[in-house]
């Protein structure tokens, strides 16, 4: 066992690499390299989409094969649930019409999300504690920072980084996510992303009632439109001594399983 003596000549490439990195960082930050990035992303995007579709396909085949037994039971449960939901939906349609007519009379407006465009999911861009979804629409397509990524009325996250043809959507599980929310029964709290724990509902007062399986929606505060579904209460964590209670939150959709997401102005 012997140690080798460091030879400084071997390290001569690092200053060059760091200098090149610094220059690239500067040029990309000011948008000087956007035409080149746009061209190269045009070449790499089809590859990324194919890879994403391929891995999703393989993943779903494997998942089906390993869960075939439980899927049968789940299917019959879902058929019953579907029938119940259809009945509930019919009742809600009547209530919606009634609600709209009442809002019209009192002059209150319903906030509807304006969907700008659809984008393909091309992968995950997270590293460290970051949790990011990559989509194939960028500055060239008119995407801007702060736009919301949704699927129907389910909120997936917010656009945080835009390059010419690709954008990064910060998912709800990202630790920097903090959204004011309320549950179906009206309990208010904050939805937070936590590294290794997924999504958590926090800051819910002890007097509020959290029920497992209840849906959670945005409350309309802090620049997020109201009534976008963000998840379902999974496990309630209530400790009497503490000031607030919390709950782990189950995602309504797995972002990486999606083929398309929709972008809406916030």
């Amino acid at each position: 066992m012997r140690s080798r003596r460091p030879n400084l000549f071997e390290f001569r490439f690092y200053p060059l690499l760091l200098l090149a990195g610094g220059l690239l960082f500067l040029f990309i930050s000011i948008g000087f390299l956007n035409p080149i990035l746009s061209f190269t992303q045009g070449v790499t995007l089809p590859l990324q989409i194919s890879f994403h579709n391929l891995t999703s396909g393989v993943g779903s085949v494997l998942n089906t094969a390993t869960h075939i037994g439980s899927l049968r039971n789940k299917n019959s449960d879902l058929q019953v649930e579907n029938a119940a939901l259809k009945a509930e939906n019919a009742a809600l349609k009547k209530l919606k019409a009634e609600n709209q007519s009442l809002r019209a009379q009192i002059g209150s407006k319903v906030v509807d999300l304006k969907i700008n465009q659809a984008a393909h999911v091309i992968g995950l861009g997270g590293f460290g504690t970051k949790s990011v979804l990559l989509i194939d629409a960028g500055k060239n397509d008119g995407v801007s920072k702060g736009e919301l990524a949704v699927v129907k009325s389910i909120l997936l996250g917010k656009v945080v980084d835009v390059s010419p043809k690709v954008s990064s959507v910060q998912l709800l599980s990202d630790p920097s996510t903090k959204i004011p929310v309320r549950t179906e029964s009206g309990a208010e709290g904050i939805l937070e992303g936590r590294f290794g724990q997924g999504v958590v509902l926090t800051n819910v007062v002890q007097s509020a009632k959290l029920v497992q399986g209840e849906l959670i929606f945005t409350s309309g505060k802090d620049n997020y439109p109201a009534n976008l579904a963000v998840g379902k209460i999974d496990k309630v964590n209530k400790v009497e001594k503490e000031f607030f209670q919390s709950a782990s939150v189950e995602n309504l959709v797995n972002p990486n399983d999606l083929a398309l997401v929709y972008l809406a102005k916030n």
Partner: protein
Amino acid sequence: MLKVAIFIILLFLIMLQTVVFPLNLAFALLVAFFLYGKGDFSYWYIAIAAILLGLFANLNIGLVLIALSLAFLIIHLFSKALPENNLSKISLVLVSLVVSEVSLTLLVGLTK
């Protein structure tokens, strides 16, 4: 021939990373190549890996290049300090996963 094979594996690995794996496996592959196939290693592979990673993961390529270069420098210094045997090499490949992740998180994450 080995260089071409490594380059193709690197390309596929980086593409797969954005859909399946964490973002630092390509870096570990580079470190393994540096430790085991020294004669064939080129420092431009670090630049190539950074460019591909930046493009595929929608990160600033410059910052990724700085992060990977610094991470590689740390591994390089460690490799000089440690005895040259398989245990050291395997340990360095494993450490490189953490070093690159920390480096990327610090440099790219903090600038967001």
